[in-house]
């Protein structure tokens, strides 16, 4: 009995001793968060409730799963060496205070922020960085790995510990997008995961790492250096996070972030329920579609306790919706047409973007010529605006006439030079309402100039399968995208597996580019990407990607249509959610918002 009392007393003493340490969880040199994220004077405390519309998390292992819910949650719990500014998308110091490039650009030294602690109080060190890079990020058996981005010319980046607070990355060749890819690598705690990863625990078979941090893991085992830590997961209903007392960012007044004590994700996969729960005041901030804007705005004007913001699109995913024609289609006459630039120009003239923006997006979309968004200042090439093809049915018809695709038999449908009617199937995703709608509008406009379009609406995953296997005629699609084109070269560079509109530029499984199949402009794009990858100077890199965008705009391998704007509904009780001068919505960063 006495023994037990002693234990209690001792642990109380220990707790008291630890308490100041917990309060002083800040490192000596915390990161002062960018001023552009703050608006008013923050009041700490309260809880922020968000809707998790992508469904239940499949796991809490950021690298063990491919699941946007897991990413959404874990991005609050883990943090990277290099930070990205949520407003400008520029790179900033993160867990690494600073970094040096060697003269040849092949060695990068990261100096870690001293005194940063994991949420369980253990220090964050170079060992953690090495562990994360070797056993998670670059582990080919981790399902959510990023090894591809850390592989340059078939060789992998090497990570070396210099001392407890310094790590070196040794690159096989200079690599322009390197810091950008490092910003995607969130750090994992070695002390919690070493025995669960096959690289550090030889007893485990390959792939075991994926089974770490599954959804039934004790929340206390899941530690990170991010603003929040996991408190509880109630299956299919709610994920509760609490403030990490050791978070390493402060506001301008050097108050530790985050402001709110708790961050709650309500799992609401159905967007109507999410809207209802927002209106009922159960959700604090919600991304909504353009169609729901009037509903919320009307209530806002009537004095509802919430408001809605519309902002310039900044998230590169999904890429703007595009229309693609299969360059390798079996039908010879159609292939001839699809490969003809004039034909594709005619199709571009037949796209009524204004009407699409008005009727599909409730005016909340921007016309788009490129996968690179205009808000992406680091890469967007404004030159392409000169090549934008605006809706003009007469010109579209004239172009078709010019290439000899005319309605000879007066049945309302044009004939190809071989006498077959100009008719093709347009495949689009039935589960993406905007794609279905755009396809319906396109069909209407194209039929006005004598082009017969058969709609084929299928599940998005099936549309994707059809695209990648080349089993389509025309396709309406959007990709998951990245701000740095290099990171999605698999789509945009000819000779890559996702360059699906011209698959003959790639040879089978070996994925070797076939230059004989490429047009001159495709070869040029190919070169742009090859050079952009190994160039270090941002300005030179931009020049290469500028050229890619120009070639795209001139030759229309695919025709980009629109990109929906960011629309966010937010309760007025949430602070630091506002519109920047440049039209970007700020306050999607959970560590800077507060409850009034």
């Amino acid at each position, binding site marked *: 009995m006495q023994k037990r009392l002693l234990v209690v007393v001792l642990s109380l003493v220990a707790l008291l001793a630890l308490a100041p340490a917990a309060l002083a969880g800040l490192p000596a040199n915390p990161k002062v968060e960018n001023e552009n994220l703050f608006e008013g004077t923050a009041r700490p405390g309260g809880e922020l409730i968000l809707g998790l519309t992508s469904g239940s998390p499949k796991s809490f292992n950021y690298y063990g799963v491919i699941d946007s819910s897991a990413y959404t949650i874990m991005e609050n719990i883990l943090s990277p060496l290099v930070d990205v500014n949520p407003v400008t998308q520029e790179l900033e110091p993160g867990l690494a205070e600073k970094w040096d490039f060697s003269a040849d650009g092949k060695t990068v030294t990261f100096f870690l922020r001293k005194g940063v602690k994991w949420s369980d109080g253990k220090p964050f060190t170079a060992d953690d960085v090495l562990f994360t890079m070797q056993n998670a990020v670059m582990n080919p058996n981790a399902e959510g790995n990023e090894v591809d981005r850390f592989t340059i010319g078939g060789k992998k980046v090497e990570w070396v510990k210099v001392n407890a607070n310094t790590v070196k990355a040794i690159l096989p060749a200079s690599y322009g997008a390197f810091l950008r890819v490092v910003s995607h690598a969130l750090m994992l705690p070695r002390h919690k995961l070493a025995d669960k990863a096959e690289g550090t625990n030889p007893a485990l078979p390959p792939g075991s790492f994926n089974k770490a941090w599954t959804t039934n893991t004790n929340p206390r085992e899941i530690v990170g250096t991010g603003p929040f830590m996991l408190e509880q997961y109630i299956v299919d209903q709610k994920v509760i996070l609490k403030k990490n007392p050791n978070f390493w960012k402060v506001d301008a007044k050097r108050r530790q972030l985050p402001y709110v004590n708790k961050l709650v994700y309500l799992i609401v996969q159905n967007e*109507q329920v999410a*809207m*209802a729960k927002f209106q009922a005041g159960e959700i604090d901030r919600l991304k909504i579609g353009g*169609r*729901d*804007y*009037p*509903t919320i*705005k*009307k209530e806002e*004007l009537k004095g509802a306790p919430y408001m809605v913001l519309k902002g310039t699109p900044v998230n590169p995913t999904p890429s703007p919706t595009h229309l693609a024609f299969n360059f390798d289609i079996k039908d010879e006459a159609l292939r001839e047409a699809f490969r003809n630039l004039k034909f594709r120009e005619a199709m571009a003239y037949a796209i009524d973007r204004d*009407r699409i923006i*008005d*009727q*599909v997006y*409730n*005016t*909340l979309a921007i016309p788009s010529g490129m996968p690179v968004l205009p808000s992406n200042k680091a890469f967007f090439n404004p030159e392409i605006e000169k090549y934008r093809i605006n809706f003009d049915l007469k010109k579209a018809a004239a172009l078709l006439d010019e290439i000899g695709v005319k309605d000879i038999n007066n049945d309302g449908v044009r004939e190809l030079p071989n006498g077959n009617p100009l008719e093709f*199937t347009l495949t689009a995703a*039935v*589960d993406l309402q905007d794609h*279905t*709608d755009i*396809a*319906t*509008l396109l*069909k*209407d406009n194209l039929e006005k100039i004598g082009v017969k379009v058969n*709609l*084929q*609406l*299928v*599940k998005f995953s*099936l549309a994707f399968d059809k695209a990648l296997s080349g089993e389509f005629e025309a396709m309406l699609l959007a990709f998951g995208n990245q701000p740095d084109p290099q990171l999605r070269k698999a789509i945009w560079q000819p000779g890559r597996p996702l360059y699906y509109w011209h698959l003959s530029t790639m040879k089978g499984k070996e994925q070797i580019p076939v230059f004989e199949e490429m047009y001159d402009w495709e070869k040029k794009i190919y070169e742009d990407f090859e050079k952009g990858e190994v160039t270090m100077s941002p300005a030179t890199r931009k020049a290469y990607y500028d050229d890619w965008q120009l070639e795209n705009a001139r030759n229309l391998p695919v025709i980009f249509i629109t990109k929906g704007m960011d629309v966010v509904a937010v309760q007025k009780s949430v602070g630091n959610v506002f519109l920047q001068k440049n039209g970007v919505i700020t306050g999607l960063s959970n560590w800077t918002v507060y409850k009034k």
Partner: protein
Amino acid sequence: MSETFTNPPVANQPLPKIPGKMPGKTPGRNQNEALLEGEGEVALSQAQKIRLRFMRHKLGVVGGAIIVFLYVVVTLAPFLSPYGFEVQHPEYSLAPPTGIHFSNGKRFSLRPYTYSITKARDPITLELTYQVDREKSYPIYFFVRGEKYDIIGGWKGNLHLFGADRNSGGAVFLFGTDRFGRDLFTRTLIGGRVSMTVGVFGILLSFIIGILVGGVSGYYGGWMDNLIQRVIELLRSFPRLPLWLALSMVLPPQWSSVAVYFGVVTILSLIDWTGLARVIRGQFLSLREKEFVQAARAIGASDASIILRHMLPNTMSYLIVSATLSFPGMIIGESSISFLGLGIKEPMTSWGLLLKDAQSLEALNLHPWLMIPGIFIIVAVLAFNFVGDAMRDAFDPYSKM
């Protein structure tokens, strides 16, 4: 002998009426009543009795009339509708129903007309609004020329029952328009064609198989019953939703969405008779022990005659109720499948697909007219149910009035 314990004989009191739902007095009702009571001199055939009993069920009669009406309407849909169902009017996106007027307060005209409406978008809320201009009116004409169509059976034409004069810029949207400015009235009629017909063949097929197999299983029992029951269990184990998902993806992509839907329904009906078969079998198991069946067997009636003449009529009421409940099931099933994006697809349409457009808080709030196809679903399903109910009463061999 009659239902005196709860109700006085019905013939002695007027039929109950549900306000607004009952049609006026049916001529000759009293005479019919009398005939059913057996007071008439003329002996009635079985069919006549059934018909008379059916006519007594007012809701059933109304339901029957509605069904006939709906089938006529959807058959003639292209003629009855003022536009082609794919015709988009960009300037009338999400327009509310246009009112039909005869008088603007000052002037009366025999020819109905609509007012001019102009689209505007609220600069702040971005809501679409329509301004009605009471000064500008457009007459509605009957038998106007418009989009070409082809009614089943080869009736080609471009004559539409009514419509606005297209050159004047007038428009008539009885049910409003959808997002692309397509006339919802037209689309509802065309959509009804799909919703009301595409499952009929499947129902027929599954009933024939279900009655046959269930009857045999229940009548003979023994190893035959056992075998059939196991086969049924096996068939019932075909997972419907995965099968639907797979079939809708596997059927040739060149097929139109209606053909794909029809194909899937037909394939599914080949395995969907099992529920009915189980119930028929249950009833037969029970019936074959009954005295009258034993008696029939004792006098040496053949199996076929026992099944067809003695047992099947006894399950008739169940079959009728089941069959009529299958039609609503088919209509509602179509709407569920379309909700999941696996059913009818653009540019073709169906009530289910149209209702999907209304399946959002935005639509309920700002564009309530998009729910009109839902009313059609409800009315059609109701009508089938009423008819089924009336049929049940009519077939009931013991039904005495």
